[in-house]
């Protein structure tokens, strides 16, 4: 079985232990296989792009790693604990407290204001309204949304809406941000601005990012890119930030 970048869970060097990891994951939808032994790990603070054509399984892999789907076989590990065997309640809790999400479309509640939407995860975590709105408000200037706090999100442009979604994903200070085609519905320049803000803020917060995209120009914002093909992570390469060669095995698709 493939386990190119698997580290033992009791790895002595804490910094090198993956914060989020898929080990030999299989996932079928009915008779249709989506993942066929996918293995992938992201280190703390790493920005990792998962690339691949439509139907390659890259989004399914993200959903498995984020605890949204349960793998049919294989394991998901988050911060030293097994994620896929947790109860639904514990997984939901973990998703809310430790993970942030940005998707391509429709994540905001259009009837609510920008500030409401950003504060939502904090309110769901039973933070006081005052504290939640204060923290939500602090994110507005960081994402170039000054003065838009009272605007209903249904009235925003695509780029503004995506920046609000990004603020909402980061406001609860998640350990891992999962982004699935976050610029998919945006034009080139607007998409670049969103990527700049995503990468810049994730780095500032030390947040690990798992970014799924079919767009190489978007993937180029990441520290490392891997390719999903036929349900497997077939290709991994060195990072450029620290110069270390992380995973250079090239497993040729068959």
């Amino acid at each position, binding site marked *: 079985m493939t386990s190119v970048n698997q580290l033992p869970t009791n790895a002595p060097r804490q910094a090198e232990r993956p914060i989020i990891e898929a080990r030999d994951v299989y996932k079928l939808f009915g008779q249709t296989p989506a993942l066929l032994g996918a293995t992938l790990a992201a280190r703390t603070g790493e920005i990792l792009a998962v690339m691949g054509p439509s139907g390659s399984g890259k989004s399914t892999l993200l959903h498995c790693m984020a605890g949204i789907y349960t793998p049919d076989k294989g394991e998901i590990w988050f911060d030293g604990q097994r994620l896929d065997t947790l109860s639904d309640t514990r997984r939901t809790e973990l998703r809310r407290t430790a993970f942030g999400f940005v998707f391509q479309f429709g994540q905001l509640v259009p009837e609510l204001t920008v500030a409401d939407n950003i504060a939502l995860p904090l309110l769901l975590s039973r933070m006081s309204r005052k504290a939640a709105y204060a923290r939500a408000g602090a994110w507005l200037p960081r994402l170039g949304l000054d003065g838009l706090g009272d605007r209903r999100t249904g009235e925003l442009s695509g780029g503004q809406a995506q920046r609000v979604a990004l603020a909402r994903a980061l406001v609860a200070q998640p350990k891992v941000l999962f982004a699935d085609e976050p610029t998919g519905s945006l034009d080139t320049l607007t998409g670049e601005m969103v990527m700049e803000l995503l990468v810049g803020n994730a780095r500032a917060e030390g947040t690990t990012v798992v970014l799924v995209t079919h767009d190489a120009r978007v993937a*180029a914002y990441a520290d490392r890119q891997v390719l999903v093909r036929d349900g497997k992570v077939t290709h991994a390469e060195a990072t*450029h930030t620290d110069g270390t060669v992380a995973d250079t095995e090239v497993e040729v*698709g068959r």
Partner: protein
Amino acid sequence: MTVPLTLLGLLEREPSYGYDLKRDYDAYFGGDKPLPFGQVYSTLRRLARDGKVTGGEAEPGAGPDRKPYTITELGTREFDTWLAKPIEPEPHLQTTLFSKVVLALLLGRPAASYLDIQRTAHMQRMRQLTELKRTGSLMQTLLADHGLFHLEADLRWIDVTSARLDALAEMVRSI
């Protein structure tokens, strides 16, 4: 070769000395490849010989003073013509990468693996250019974008070719 035409374009603004032309060329177009002084002066000498610029050489008996280079009417005409004429879109339908893939298939070598290695190299370059965009000026951003879009086009070709390798292998061996 666009260096002569670029220098003519810079001279359209105002008569200039070789040193100023080199400095401006490097600032606007040099990127990571500054223009050598030798090339500046040899190019200007050729342009003068062909009647597209005047100046440069010290006039006989005029002492050590040199005149700035000035564009002539002929030079202006040539520059205008070049500026307005579209460059030829993708004139060559032969690429090194295509040749490598066909040869690999012909010889039974691992073409898919070669394409993966190329994809890795392309992504690495794209990361560098993206970093340049994040930290550089608008001019550097636009230059980096030009590179990024071309690399992206290559990558798409690599993906499509990877997906069609089996069919291509069959065709290559049947020729």
